[in-house]
């Protein structure tokens, strides 16, 4: 009698522990599924950036590319800063996002370098790291001359 009562209590204790644990894990798992972001990258498309004549050749051209974008439940205009430059007979487009921690780099005309205001990253005109903490150069974006519109487009 005492023996079976003990067995019964052991089984019940195990039941409470296991099922209670599963219940907790289930709720936590559901919360995790909801909390995990659904989409982490944007698909890139070609966007109009500038007319070829806008590129003087002396300095890279700073262009703000505006495009429709989704931000959660918003349809917003996403604005990205791009540096356009001539590269031999073609064109070069560099992202203005610092490869270090994502601040917005700026073309400094007097030094002829890209400078990051946050932690002192310095890049040359081709986007290669000259000094400071960036682990790699500025991202090179695909750029093309659209023959129909005669406009330069970058893939963003």
């Amino acid at each position, binding site marked *: 009698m005492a023996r079976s009562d003990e067995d019964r209590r052991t089984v019940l204790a195990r039941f409470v522990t296991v099922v209670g644990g599963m219940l907790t894990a289930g709720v936590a798992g559901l919360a995790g599924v909801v909390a995990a*972001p659904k989409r982490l990258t944007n698909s890139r498309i070609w966007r109009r950036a500038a007319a070829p004549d806008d590129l003087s050749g002396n300095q890279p051209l*700073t262009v703000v590319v505006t495009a429709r974008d989704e*931000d*959660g439940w*918003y349809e917003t205009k996403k604005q990205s800063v791009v540096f356009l430059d001539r590269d031999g007979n073609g064109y070069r487009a560099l992202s203005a996002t610092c490869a270090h921690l*994502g601040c917005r780099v700026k073309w400094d005309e007097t030094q002829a370098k890209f400078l990051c205001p*946050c932690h002192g990253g310095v890049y040359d005109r081709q986007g290669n790291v000259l000094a400071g903490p960036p682990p790699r150069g500025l991202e090179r974006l695909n750029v093309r001359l659209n023959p129909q519109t005669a406009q330069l487009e970058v893939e963003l």
Partner: protein
Amino acid sequence: MKPGAAALLDWLDDRTGFRIIRHHLLDEPLPPGTAWFFTLGSVLLFGLGIQIVTGTALALYYAPTPDHAWDSVRFITTEVRLGSVLRGLHHWGASVVVVAAALHLARVVLFGSYRKPREVNWIIGNVLLQVILAFGLTGYLLPWDQRAYWATVVAINISKLTPGVGEWVAGFLRGGPEVGALTLTRWYALHVLVLPPVLALLVAVHLYLMRRQGISGPVRARRGPMTPFFPGQAARDLVLVLAAGVVLAVLAWKGAPALEPPADPTASGYVPRPEWYFLGLFQLLKYFPGRLEVIGALVVPGIAMTLLALLPWIDRGKSRAWRDRPLALGGFAFGLAAVATLTSLGAMDRPSTAAAGTWNLQELDGVTLIETSTQCATCHTATSAIAGPIEAGHIGRPADWLASHVVDPEVIAPGVRQPPPTNPRDTAAILAALARLRSDTAPALDPLTREAAGLIDHNCLRCHRIDGVGGDEGPDLSHVGRKYDAASIAKRVNNPLDVKPDAEMPAFAGKLTPAQIQTIGTWLAAKR
């Protein structure tokens, strides 16, 4: 028969037993020698209480969405009764909490209070410190101004450096592909729903263990009877709490630091500054270039935190006297000195590139005209078949083409345009704005600046120079707010002869309404 109140309390005690709880809370026995050094935990509790109350009050007005967050914070500052002080209390209250936590921690280390049997409570205290810093980090984003946005971009990119799971952690913190609406709601939820109960639970356990194990007391145990917490030590605690409250009130009276312009992902050359208690980490990052980055961002702080948490096992032994604990105290002093040095280096390192990005009044007037003019909007709309919207980076026409187009749109497309604006100052302002819009995004304007830009551009810049644009017949007004307040500027604009008998400046009374003159005065008084 007892008097009514006492009888009522007796009845209540019989039904609830509240006197035992009160006795337990207030009559905690303290070892002899417990004095001023043991008041810091109460200061910290006070600071946390202030944050909970002010944070709840802020939540009554705050909207965590990118298109309303900044405006709602501005509304709190300017419209809500005592709103500026409320924001000030919450902003500076965070600093009071961090300082109190640091002092409390230093006291525990100096007194060796983490020694057996208090190791677990020491660990909980360490976790609480992390929770407090997490509050600071998540709350920093909520005003959604430039400072908030860029500091968060940097913080999330730092989390990417976590070995193995970095991208996943960063994605979880961002909530979407970019820092945006989904990040703001996420950090808001963390700040007001997730972290507070975690904090409350940990504080409850921290206090429970403190009571269970008792106060460690002075380094060398003294002889003498135990004394109850109430009222002696309670009074000491209250004195320190009052002192902290006075400091907080003085800091908060002038409000939180002014809102910067709304978050703008395209702003070039913006220099993000973290809150002062993260400046040390910010500075540390600069010493580890390239692939070594992770060392400055995570390894060094991680090792420091781990060593701190392991102190009870590093610093064993019986005596809590300073001379018997050279390793622990030396290490702690070194860490403290390192944090202080890095923080002050970070505070001194202020790049001076920020000013170059500001738009002058003529450009701002032009932006306002373009946005509000029915003439531009006749053709330049998102859905128009004639011309696209006027947008930053989409202005490719040469300057002379733009000049003739603004003066007379008929030149380009006969028959579809309204008559052109006739005011040459409008034309000049629009052209200045278009030139700037080639490469820069226009800043978001508050209503005051919007109105003042038009008024000052039309009435003042003919003779006065402000931020590098305008005439040179009158004095430069770029810093006029250092000399005059809004009322005295308005008086001068209204009729200069009232102030200076030989003034050459014309009176604007009658030409402008009193409200317009007031707007000019208010805006100029802020030019310091």
